[in-house]
């Protein structure tokens, strides 16, 4: 038995933050791990992995530098992964439930005639997994009776793989048919919101703003300095996104990102059930709101009632 772990690269040739969690989930299965890296940055990312990350169970790296894999179109990625997984030696496949993982894993699974186990938050044993359903309102424990287990992992639920080095690992460069596939769909462009802040999905600290912040300018003026001071990612409620305070990609909740940082500071957030679903597994939750009856206080560890325009600048200064 061994595990094939799909590792996403960044445009800079490093390993994506969510794949750092996928790697540690793969290690947790306690079997030899083969890492798979695809695309133009694969070689650079393999070097990065070997000299920056400590993967104790990693026995092999498979890579293809074919740029057809860039942007991870499922129509191109799936056939290669399907081919590799047909090998009997792989009992497990692990991928992060990033937007790439969510897109490719079900397609790969259907092509192999397996039901995957998606967005797991815990590995009980190599056949048993925990995954939240009903937007985290119910926690289910699932046993997989198929001979192969195809899993996507929620990055915020697993520690990142530790830093260090990984030596004496076999690297195999494979040739695939990726460049010959001519899917009827074409990747045109990506528009990634530029930010110097940590990635919201994997940040260890998150500052989130709600509708009480009135407008875009107030949202930015109050939250940016605090986030910079704490090196935190910025998030928002659906109400704040819908009113135009910030970009849609910052939405935390049932229909947005699900986060579980060490520290979550909710500023002017009322605490709707849909928002709580996206952040209630955070380690320490702080609520700052001028409404003493806001439901968010029931979901927090530390609460303070008062004027946001006074509290936030003072807090920023005193940290």
């Amino acid at each position: 038995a061994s595990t094939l772990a799909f590792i996403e690269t960044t445009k800079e040739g490093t390993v994506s933050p969510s794949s750092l969690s996928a790697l540690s989930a793969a290690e947790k299965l306690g079997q030899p791990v083969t890492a798979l890296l695809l695309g133009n940055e694969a070689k650079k990312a393999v070097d990065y992995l070997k000299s920056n990350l400590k993967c104790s169970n990693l026995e092999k790296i498979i890579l293809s530098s074919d740029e057809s894999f860039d942007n991870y179109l499922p129509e191109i990625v799936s056939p290669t992964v399907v081919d590799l997984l047909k090998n009997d030696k792989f009992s497990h496949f692990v991928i992060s439930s990033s937007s790439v993982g969510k897109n490719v894993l079900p397609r790969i699974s259907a092509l192999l005639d397996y039901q995957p186990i998606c967005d797991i938050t815990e590995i009980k044993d190599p056949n048993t997994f925990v995954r939240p359903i009903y937007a985290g309102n119910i926690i289910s424990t699932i046993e997989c009776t198929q001979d192969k287990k195809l899993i996507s992992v929620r990055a915020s639920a697993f520690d990142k793989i530790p830093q260090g080095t990984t030596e004496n690992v076999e690297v195999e460069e494979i040739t695939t048919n990726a460049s010959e596939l001519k899917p009827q769909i074409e990747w045109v462009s990506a528009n990634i919101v530029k930010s110097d802040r940590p990635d919201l999905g994997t940040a260890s600290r998150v500052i989130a703003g709600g509708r009480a912040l009135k407008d875009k300018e107030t949202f930015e003026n109050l939250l940016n300095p605090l986030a910079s001071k704490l090196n935190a990612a910025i998030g928002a409620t659906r109400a704040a996104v819908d009113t135009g305070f910030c970009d849609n990609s910052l939405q935390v909740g049932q229909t947005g990102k699900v986060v579980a940082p060490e520290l979550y500071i909710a500023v002017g957030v009322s605490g709707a059930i849909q928002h709580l679903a996206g952040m209630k597994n955070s380690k320490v939750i702080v609520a700052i709101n001028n409404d003493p009856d806001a439901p968010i206080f029931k979901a927090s560890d530390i609460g303070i009632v008062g004027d946001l325009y006074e509290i936030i600048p003072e807090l920023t200064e005193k940290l």
Partner: protein
Amino acid sequence: MSMSKLRILVPVKRVIDYQIRPRVLNNAIDSKTIKFSINPFDDIAVEEAVRIREKNKDLVELIHSVSIGPTKAQDVLRTCLAKGVDTSTLVDSGEQQLEPLSVAKILKEIVMKNNSNLVILGKQAIDDDSNNTGQMLAGLLSWPQATNAAKIEFLEDNTKVKIVREIDGGEETLISSLPLVITTDLRLNTPRYVSLQNMMKAKKKPIEKLKLSDFNNIDTTQRLKTISIEEPKPRENGIMVNSVDELVTSLKNAKAIE
């Protein structure tokens, strides 16, 4: 190159209404007396199909909805018909729970039978949160897939579709030809409400009724076994502080900051 007209399939699921917090009773979801609705993301898919017809004259030949679930799932099909869907199919699976893989296999047969060339469905159902069916169906059909769509636009005499989709940290743009599977994300549109008048009219529209046994070539045995379900443990009571200084001290005590 001209294109054959669109035959859109919109699969929809009946789920516990999104405003209701599900509870666990005797190791099962307590679903006896609560409200069920169309899965919100599927509602967005229905709305998009109807808007495509409204925006592109003569482009759409047929919008067909299908639901796979208990007999009562016909209620959500009635809603679809009232919103502008033309025809529908209920695949009555009784009490049997189906995994996304089985659902995708049944949908594949419905696609072939209806000669559909565009499938639009929600990115995920808000009950099992699997986010599987659209991608699986696309794989089984060997069709391209555009998931988490935030914008759909027809180009070049309607032979191509441009999709803006939500991804981590932003969005990306794809252009595809048909046939195609699209899954919908929240920003795509805001579904319309149904008027009583349209609800009454919808009663005359057809619902084809099939049973799981009509798909006996498909093995619907569960591949995953639910060992337990439980409500998450409630958070221990928090504290209220009265000043920023107290807040900073509490944060340090909780080791949330140095």
